[in-house]
């Protein structure tokens, strides 16, 4: 549903993306990793039409992001959760913030109410509904932003560092919900530095120096990254490989492998 073809983009300070080809199919879960300044956030902004490519094109459901008359259609089918939690909030309270987008979709009031309740419950932040966004912590704001995008039920959700400010328990919960949304058919583009967040994605892409340097399943890409010593990989993966076990992505699988290895001795 998303297609980038030979995309170039530069800021006045220099090139950020050079010759990027990327497709995200309907219902696919794509992870994007890269260092600060590697162009990850720029890529997200190009997909949603917030930025336009200097060369090449970006299409969402076959609509070019340069087609200003149909930009609204793109915005409806893609929802973006920004990295900076303050960049996104529109309303005064959490509820107002969530109502805004739904009213723009033209939904009837009772439906708006049901949906807001559903997603606040899903993310476990029902008690924040009437809170002033200003008084929320960074992590709470991140959850509210996520809810505000999920409530729109877009075809594709683009997440830019969605759990950088939340605690371990909350991170696990959010990642599970992202995986579930994906399972139910929502395409996901998940941008992060943290490899542990991406173990569930179908396809993992590494951006470095303006280009795509690695691409494949998490197992394939983590294997390459570990060999190249270029970027962090999930700790269970690194430990299992260094001990010569079959590579695993989770702590649970690592513990199982180690038990097997012990009884084999």
């Amino acid at each position, binding site marked *: 549903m998303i297609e980038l073809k030979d995309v170039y983009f530069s800021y006045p300070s220099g090139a950020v993306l050079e010759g990027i080809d990327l497709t995200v199919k309907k219902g696919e879960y794509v992870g994007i990793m890269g260092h600060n300044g590697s162009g990850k956030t720029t890529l997200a902004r190009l997909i949603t039409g917030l930025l336009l490519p200097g060369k090449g094109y970006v299409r969402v459901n076959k609509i070019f992001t340069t087609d200003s008359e149909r930009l609204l259609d793109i915005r409806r089918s893609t929802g973006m959760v920004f990295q900076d939690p303050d960049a996104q909030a529109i309303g005064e309270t959490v509820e107002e913030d969530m109502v805004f987008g739904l009213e723009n979709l033209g939904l009837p009031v009772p439906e708006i109410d049901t949906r807001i309740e559903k997603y606040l419950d899903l993310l476990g932040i029902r008690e924040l509904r009437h809170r002033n966004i200003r*008084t929320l912590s*960074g992590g709470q704001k991140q959850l509210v932003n996520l809810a505000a995008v999920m409530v729109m039920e877009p075809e594709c959700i683009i997440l830019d560092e969605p759990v950088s*400010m939340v605690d371990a328990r909350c991170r696990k919960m959010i990642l599970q919900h992202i995986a579930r949304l994906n399972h139910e058919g929502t395409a996901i583009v998940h941008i992060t530095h943290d490899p542990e967040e991406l173990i569930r994605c179908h396809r993992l892409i590494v951006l470095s120096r303006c280009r795509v340097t690695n691409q494949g399943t998490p197992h394939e890409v983590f294997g390459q990254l570990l060999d190249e010593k270029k970027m962090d990989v999930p700790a269970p993966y690194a*430990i299992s490989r260094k001990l010569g076990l079959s590579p695993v992505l989770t702590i649970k699988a690592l513990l199982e492998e180690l038990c097997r290895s012990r009884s084999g001795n």
Partner: protein
Amino acid sequence: MSIEIRQLTHIYDASTPWETIALDRIDLTISKGTVFGLVGGIGSGKSTLASLMAGLGTPAHGSITIDGEPPDPGRNVGILFQQPEDFFFEKTLFEDMASGLLHLGLTEEEVHKRIHSTLDLLGLDHQILDRSPFHLNRGTLRLAAFATVLTMRPGYLILDEPTASLDPKSRKRLVEVIKRISGDIAIIYISHRLQEVVAVSEYLAVLEQGKVAFTGTVPGYLDWATGQDAWEYLPVLNQVMYGLQRLGFDVDLNVACLEDAVEQIRLSLERT
């Protein structure tokens, strides 16, 4: 020489139906020359405590003193906010870094000296001073924001999620700097990255729903977390070690790094 927090209570939206008790009778002592980690779930009160310690806002009840004085931002205490990149707005980075110092009444010469020596301390390229903050990437800008707070030379420095949305390389750099400067000042380190908090801190406190659930040393913290089987409070490597201990492997809970963990597991496998 310490920050003394006594019976500190803070309430948001007081006397409304949405009244929230953010901090509930907190007692903490943070001594100079240490890195003090502060962890807790979202909404546990970490950021509220941080802003009150930084002298931003008045607590509803209780007191905070810094070396016996009330917090005075920019003078006895400094804070690096979450997402500090948003606080840059001048034409060049230099103008941004200088504005606070000029506000403190320093001479231009002294301002130049402080900015350049701080950049040296952090290993930052002096050329970035002439660049627009809007053209620097997030990692560089975060270090620049950190440098800006350091130029104020606070005796107590609060870092609120300093490494959030930084890549591993920039994260390591920031953590190294923190370790290097912590001998002279106290650093209060707030983060969800437990691996990092445990690596950088000597003491730490856990906040749960506005109350202090634990305070003590790092090994004490790991024992506290495993004592109640609270995996979510353990950094990933310690989770692995704890899981192995429970399965009867002979390994230490407290490991410094990935290589250390791998070595311990290897030895334990050889022994069986």
